[in-house]
């Protein structure tokens, strides 16, 4: 029997039961659409995290103190004090692949202006921090190395702080705010950066020279972290190695000693985040995949019902000359038509759903070609796989008994 005849016979059989064929198809349609929409959401969020990270400066390197053994006791990283200005200077001087470096000494505090106050984070940094973090001054100026040297009582405000301390919209530049009873003169404001991918408000910040925080507020010589920036994204691995080497030297670590600091590049962070969102994608895909399998089982179920219901038809077809293989192919082609048509509709629906999600909810979505191809192939295979057993059952019927079936 020719392929055209097969398809024609299968189509006619499906036409006789349009509603049932459609309902069976619905399982596949929803399965495929779910796979495509879910993967699109997953990929979209991955992409948006990545683009946010590169906006943060993807050649950025973060140096943090890490846990270390002190007299046999392991001490938590953040409380361990190991990074000092010596490290910063050494990196500045010796690291060839590092273009900028800035210590960070931060504290929490209540910023006060007039009758208004706002709890925020005060970050003591070097002027180079603005380059490293891609921060821009909107209004006024940034502080200078001279301000650092004198531990000047000046600061640059983030948008959130401004909104809370200067709600009337007046320019904060030139005003004096107080933080933990220390007066700081506002010399500039930052261009808003919005939320980070971690949901952190990047504008809820006051920047001031690190010496100001260290000497006037915390009275410490240690930094919470050091930020550096590699000459380019490609050299961040070399820069990491250099920094590690320099810090081991300044920390006087013997060969074999564990590092008492950790150097992180954004690359690693990007990887970590992508793997997190990859996991998300995998999870979403798995859930969607399950619905596809359920759709397949729906096909199998209906095909079995259809074989039983059409036993006489099968008997008749056999009596007029259909071979077992003709019957097998007929039912298989029916199953494939259902799954492939369902697949096509599902692809259209999935792509539309992704676009609707972007338009209504504002979530970024990326419809990947691979998810279309994959889900389409899976559903075609589902048709073959779940259609095969009922079809085989049909082809093995005895024509005599099938003809007498009531």
């Amino acid at each position, binding site marked *: *029997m020719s392929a055209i005849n097969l398809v024609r016979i299968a189509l006619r059989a499906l036409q*006789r039961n349009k509603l049932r064929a459609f309902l069976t198809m619905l399982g596949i349609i929803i399965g495929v659409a779910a796979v495509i929409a879910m993967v699109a959401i997953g990929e979209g969020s991955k992409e948006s995290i990545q683009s946010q990270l590169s906006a943060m400066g993807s050649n950025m390197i973060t140096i943090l103190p890490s846990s270390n053994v002190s007299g046999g006791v392991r001490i938590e990283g953040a409380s361990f004090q190991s990074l000092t200005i010596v490290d910063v200077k050494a990196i500045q001087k010796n690291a060839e692949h590092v273009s900028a470096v800035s210590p960070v000494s931060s504290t929490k505090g209540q910023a006060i202006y007039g009758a208004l106050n706002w709890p925020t984070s005060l970050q003591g940094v070097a002027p180079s921090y603005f380059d490293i973090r891609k921060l821009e001054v909107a209004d006024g100026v940034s502080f200078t190395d001279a301000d650092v040297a004198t531990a000047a009582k000046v600061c640059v405000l983030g948008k959130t702080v401004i909104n809370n301390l200067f709600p009337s919209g007046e320019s904060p530049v030139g005003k004096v705010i107080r933080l933990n009873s220390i007066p700081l003169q506002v010399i500039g404001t930052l261009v808003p950066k919005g939320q980070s991918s971690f949901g952190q408000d990047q504008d809820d910040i006051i920047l001031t020279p690190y010496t100001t925080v260290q000497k006037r507020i915390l009275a410490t010589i240690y930094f919470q972290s050091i930020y550096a920036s590699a000459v380019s994204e490609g050299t961040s691995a070399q820069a990491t190695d250099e920094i590690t080497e320099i810090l081991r030297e300044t920390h006087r670590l013997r060969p074999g000693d564990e590092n008492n600091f950790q150097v992180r590049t954004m690359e690693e962070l990007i990887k970590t985040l992508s793997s997190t969102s990859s996991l998300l994608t995998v999870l979403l895909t798995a859930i969607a995949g399950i619905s596809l399998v359920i759709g397949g089982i729906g096909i199998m179920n209906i095909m079995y019902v259809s074989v039983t219901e059409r036993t006489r*038809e099968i008997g*008749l077809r056999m*009596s007029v000359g259909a071979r077992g293989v003709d019957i097998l192919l007929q039912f298989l082609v029916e199953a494939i038509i259902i799954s492939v048509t369902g697949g096509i509709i599902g692809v259209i629906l999935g792509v539309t759903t992704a676009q609707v999600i972007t338009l209504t909810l504002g979530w970024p979505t990326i419809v990947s070609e691979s998810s279309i191809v994959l889900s389409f192939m899976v559903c075609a295979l589902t048709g073959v796989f779940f259609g095969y057993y009922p079809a085989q059952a049909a082809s093995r019927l005895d024509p005599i008994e099938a003809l007498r079936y009531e």
Partner: protein
Amino acid sequence: MNSKILELQQIKREFIMGTETVRALKGVSFDVHAGEFVTIMGSSGSGKTTLLNLLGCLDKPTAGNYLLDGVDVGNLSRNELARLRNRKIGFVFQAYNLLPRTSALENVELPLFYNPSLSASERKDKAVKALEAVKLADRLDHTPSQLSGGQQQRVAIARALVNQPVMILADEATGNLDTRTSYEIMSLMQDLNKEGKTIVFVTHEPDIAAFSNRTVMLRDGKVVKDTVNENVRSAKEALESLPPADDY
């Protein structure tokens, strides 16, 4: 009219039901020549159905030879049997067995779908001709539910004819029909027989057997009588002799 279409030589068919062996046919022999109109008669349990299944190549004998148009059926595989059914036999069933929600034309086309050498237009031509032969040319697009019992059976006969088989095998083809319609069907059968079709008609109604030119009587799996009917009753005349019905 001398070539043998069917040759049955000592056909035996046994079924194993659990521990018992049921001997449905205990050595049946007869020949059917081209152009004959044979009725096979017998009460239920006589082996009629078993014989019909064998004649229709739906089943194979346990012992003995069955030659259909010179081909020994006993040696054929399932697929070869299917091909044989497609090319040499036209079935007419008691319950018509038409595909529901499918037009008369498509129902008649059905056997041709299993003949790969035919194109779509040839298929349609043949089906239309077959329907014309059973005088249903004006009902091509009607589905079975839109046709009367007699019309449905005529569609079934057209389906049996469409492959130009060597034999039409009818299984109680008038069993579901009233007398008048039965006579119409028999009249059609007689016309087809006159055109040279070999017909084997299984029935238990002696009334129907009278329209054929030979009757093979089965009892307990054996042929008990094989008589040539000297004065064949004309179905057309029988039809005319019926009192006129209101619905015609």
